Every structure is written in C-alpha cells, then in structure tokens.
C-alpha cells in the first residue's frame, strides 16, 4: 500500500497502462514535459518517449479526431482535455464520430479511446474551469461515462477505462486531486470493482444518497453528520454514469424508501433528473417521499467568489435529506 494523492494515483494507473500495453498512448496539451497542468501525467513522457506521450497542438477537436484515427489503426489513445470547459471544441468529434463509429460500422470498428476531463469547481478558478458537463455525454448513446471520487478508484478506474473497448469519458474531480488515500499499486486489477458498478460508500437504512466524483466526499461527510443526529444515511458512489448501475440504486432505494441525488452540475436536465425518473418508475411503491435533487443552479457557473454558494455542500445535502422526511 502506498499513500497517494488522487492525481498521483491516476499517474500510477496511467503508468501501469503504458507499461502493460504498447498500444496505449497519452495525448493532450502540456501532458509531456510539463506533466499536465495538474501533473497527472508527470514524468510519463520522460519514461515512455514523445511518440507515446504526445504534446499536441492546442486544438481539442484535433486531439480527439486524431485519437479516433489512431484507434482505427489499432492504438488505445488516452486524451487529456485540460479543463471541462474546453471539451466543447471536441464535442463534435466526440458525439458525431467517437460515439457512433461502432454503431455505424455495424460492429466492424471499435474505438477504445479514453477522454480524461478534470471537472467541477471549488478551486477558485476563472470561467470555463469549473464545469460539470457529464449530462451532455450521458445523453449520447455509444459513450461510456465514468467519474472517480477517490484515489483508490482513480488508480483502478483509469486502467479499467483504458482496457475497455468502448470509448470512455473519464471525469476527474478537480478539487479532490490533492486528497490522499492508501492505494495498493502492487497487485493487478482482478479484485477491482468493475467499471460499470456503483459502490456503497456508507451503509445506511433511512435514506439513500446517490453521488459521484467530487460529491462523494461531501456526501460521506453528510452521512456522518446525519448519523450524529440519529439518521442512517446510505451513500452510493455511482462511479459509472453511463450506463447507470440501476440494480444497486434500486435495491438501496427500495430498502430505505427515500432518495437524494447530489451533483455539482445544474439540476435542470441533469443526471439527477434521469435517476429520479428511473427510481420513480421502478421503486414507486416503496417510496416514502419524492426523489430530491441537490445540485448547481440553472445558471452559468458563477465567479469563483460565489462558488461556495453554487456548489452543493454538506449542509445542502443534509437539508435535502431532512426534506425527504417531511412527506
């Protein structure tokens, strides 16, 4: 076991992937000599060379478009989009090309491309550096969308995403890059939870809180606080946003009868809306209250001096938990 930051855990996972498969490539802006603006790719170019850890021209559509071509040639590119708000120039290549290639080729082509996106707010950044665009990708058939929430998952999930034959959008919780945990980098991934499975972070009996990415830590802390007030909160880290592990979600909600979904993204048209609809369809008779959502407001992301108001925190999660008992 090694104590690693989430950023370092990703780095170790990427290193393992580069070591295990010569077809794995890393490409993006500043990923080489600099090691990425969050140092996730630190030292990799030095050890694996410029042909495998590629500093690309500064154009996101070009990064994803050429990654598609490399994948067609048999490579497994891992693209870094420097910040969430910069994925949009690549949105066309991701949604019209990457997501659809297997479908339109009737299975003749596969594109094992991973697109890493640091996401979310909380670091006092300027505009376009704090967004949570996951729902735009979960809405697109053909993409897998995942989010890691802690160093242990970061290390395993990045490797699982790279070995996945489908394209994966991989969200990294920016404000958790410096969180530390003990990570086992010695063994293989045989014991790792599959990429499409949710994980129960805190077991509870009164209400289910569903979350992912940066909100996992917040919700786990909320569960502790609620416990002090005598409420037993179950916290589930969804991990896979597309497809959703509905089996785990429904089992928990049927048991607790209450459900809160928390994410940083605006709730309007957000992933929580999809989850609320599905939970209502499948768990209706076991529900004690409507599914409640906690998330960003339906506004553009505010200037960073206001982001503590925008980002759902422990108290807003607890407020929603409390409200599920008001029906």
């Amino acid at each position, binding site marked *: 076991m090694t104590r690693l930051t989430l950023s370092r855990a990703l780095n170790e996972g990427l290193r393992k992937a580069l070591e295990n498969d010569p077809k794995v*490539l890393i490409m993006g802006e500043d990923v080489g000599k600099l090691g990425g603006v969050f140092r996730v790719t630190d030292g990799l170019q030095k050890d694996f060379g410029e*042909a495998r850890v590629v500093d*690309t*021209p500064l*154009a996101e*559509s*070009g990064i*994803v*478009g*050429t*990654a*598609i*071509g*490399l*994948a*067609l*040639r*048999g*490579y497994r590119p891992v693209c870094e989009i420097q910040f969430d708000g910069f994925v949009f*120039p690549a949105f*066309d*290549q991701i949604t*019209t*090309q990457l997501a*659809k*290639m*297997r*479908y*339109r*080729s*009737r*299975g*003749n*082509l*596969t594109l094992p491309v991973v697109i890493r996106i640091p996401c979310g707010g909380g670091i006092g950044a300027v505009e376009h550096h704090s967004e949570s665009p996951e729902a735009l990708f979960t809405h697109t*058939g*053909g993409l*897998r969308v995942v989010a890691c929430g802690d160093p242990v998952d970061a290390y395993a999930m990045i490797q699982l995403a790279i070995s*996945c*034959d*489908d394209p994966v959008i991989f969200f990294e919780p920016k404000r958790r890059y410096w969180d530390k945990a003990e990570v086992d980098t010695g063994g293989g991934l045989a014991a790792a939870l599959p990429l*499409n499975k949710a994980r129960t972070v805190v077991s509870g009996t009164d209400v289910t809180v569903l979350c992912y990415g940066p909100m996992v830590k917040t919700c786990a802390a909320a569960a502790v606080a609620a416990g002090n007030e005598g409420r037993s909160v179950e916290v589930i880290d969804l991990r896979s946003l597309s*497809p*959703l592990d*509905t*089996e785990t979600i429904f089992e928990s909600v049927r048991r607790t009868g209450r459900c809160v979904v928390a994410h940083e993204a605006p709730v309007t048209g957000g992933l929580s809306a999809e989850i609320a609809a599905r939970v209502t369809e499948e768990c209706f008779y076991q529900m004690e209250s409507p599914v409640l959502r906690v998330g960003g407001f339906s506004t553009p992301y505010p200037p960073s001096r206001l982001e503590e108001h925008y980002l759902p925190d422990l108290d807003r999660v607890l407020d929603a938990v409390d409200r599920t008992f008001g029906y």
Partner: protein
Amino acid sequence: MTVNDAGRAASADSLPASGQPEPAEFVQLLTPEGERIDHPDYPLEISAEEIRALYRDLVLVRRIDFEAIALQRQGQLGIWASLLGQEAAQVGSGRALGPKDMAFPTYREHGVAWCRGLDPTKLLELYRGVSHGGWDPKAHNFHLYTIVIGSQTLHATGYAMGIQRDGAVGGDDGEAVIAYFGDGATSQGDVNEAFIWASVTNAPVVFFCQNNQWAISEPLERQSRVPLYRRALGFGFPGIRVDGNDVLACLAVTRKAMQAAREGQGPTLIEAFTYRMGAHTTTDDPTRYRLAAELETWKLKDPIERVKAYLVRNEMTDEKFFADLEAESAEVGARIRKACLEMPDPDPMAIFENVYVEPNALLESERDQYAAYLDTFEEVAR
C-alpha cells in the same frame, strides 16, 4: 515534390482572388480535346491497356451514379449524392493508391469506392437507409463515408500518425493515407486542424480536395479568397492544383504525392479543379443559384469524353471495346438496381446492436421492452 511546387505555381499564377474562372496553371496531361501533353514534374508512363482500364472505371462509375439517381427518383433511395463530373478526380486518385494505403472518403466518393473494390450496392444501402455504412473498412482499406463535413480529415491524419508509430513509413513498402474532402470543407476547423497536425508530425497523408466549385449553393468565393492549393504553403507543406477532369493528371499527381508520403516526406494538399455537374444531392435544385451557361462550359471539359477521344484518335482501341463496355455498364446498372430492389429492411432489433462492445443492461432492457411491445401486435414481421 517540394514546397517549391506551391511557391512556383503561386508566383506564376495570376488568378483573381476567388479562383473561380479558368485556372491559369494546373497540372494537365490530357486536354479536354483529348490531346496528350507532357508536364515536366509529372511524367506518366502508361500503356494503352491501362488507359482503357481507366476509361472503363470512368464509364462504370458514371453508370452506377446514373442508376442511383434513378433509384432515388423512384423512391428506392432516400437521397443520393451524385459524383457526376468528378469521375476523373476520383478514379485518377483512387487508382493511385496501393493496396495497403488507407482512404478516408466523404459521402460522394463512389468512384474511389469502386477503385477500392467495394460493391456499389453497399453504397446504396446507406442511401436507402438500411445501414449507416454496410462495409468493413478494413477489408477494403476504405473507411466509412463521413457526412459531417471535414471530420474524416482528422481521422485520416491520426491514422497516418499510427502508420508512423508502426514504423510503416519510409522504404519501399511504406504506407500512406488519403483524405478526401471538398471545397466547402476547407472552411471547417477540423480540416485546418488536420493540416496543422499533419504538418507538425510530418504524417504520411495526402489531402485530396475536390474543388467542385459549389458547396450546395455557395460558390468558392464564399470559402476562400485564395486558390485552395495555395493554403498548404501557410501550413508548411506543398500544395498542387490538378485538372480534376483529367484522369491521367489526377493519377500522376496523386501517385507522386502518395509516394512522397510513403517515403516520409510528409503531407501534400492536392486541389483537383473540377465541377459538380449535378445537384448537391437529389434534394437540391441548382437552378436556384447557378447559371446554365456555367454548366455548358464545363460540359466541354467532360472527364470521360476526352479519354474516349484520345483512345479513338490514337487507335488504341476498337469498336468492340466500346460495345463490350456498354454491355458491361448495362449489366452493372441492372445488377445494382436488382440488388437495391431486393434489399430487405433490417430487423427492428438491429437498432440496439453494436452500440457498445461490452454488454449494456440499459440497452438490453430497452430492447426487451420494445420486443415485448411489438409482440402485442399481430401483423408486425420480426
């Protein structure tokens, strides 16, 4: 080929900004009248048999196109994008490719598809709505048609970067990629990004732009103030303009550019100066935006007639060749027509197939629910 190609051409060229009128300089090896001329940079040794083979390609792809338009008019295809007028650009470049070279087409490259050995009925599948592309790109080294304008130029460049990493560039058995696109696509960010990537990586890719003068209703001057081939110079690789209605010139120019790419000399932009004789697609009405006189001018530069004139004048063939080809052409037309008419609709459950490699519980559940729903109807064939 060197950067000087573009530089020399640019300095000698007195084109107006739009590039729309007759180009002052392009590579031509066969005049519209069927006269063979030489070009110092593009010597072409070609036998009578090879020219007859090119002529056959030109005639057959025009026939396939003709048949497809008819099928669309009869409601058998949803839409068709005609290649009429662009046969030489496509056959000339298509026949310049080696078996290991990879081609990335737009949605109009029926002539290139033919050269790559693709059954034309596969193209009809797409335009009939039976599939989004029913062929295996790896089997023909011919990628799927791409409809989003210019996207495929980045895929081609990435593929070429893969060739570099495979060590398959340079030497006699080198591989290269050709990316097809049109004049309108040169305005797309993706095409410009592809130029940049190919340039800074020296990727073995040839950018083959069929400048057919029209992007649906928009003439070239809406896309560019300079001749398109000159743009290459700004990206740092050679650009060359070729008579896109001259199959021999397209063959020679593409062959040289592909060879340069295979040998590790990097990308080339080829502008094939041609004309879209038909509508953009069968849904378009070009009489709303262009003059009939323009069409008449280009009819005189027909890519097929000039080859025929050359073959006849130089007694390189006989009447039997033309008669046999006419019969073969009719046979190809009849065959694809029959195949189109007999093409079944896919099974409804095909909607859910090949979205992901790995099993997906959500899709399986949607599929099962829809199948159960369909089963509640008596008459639905599944």
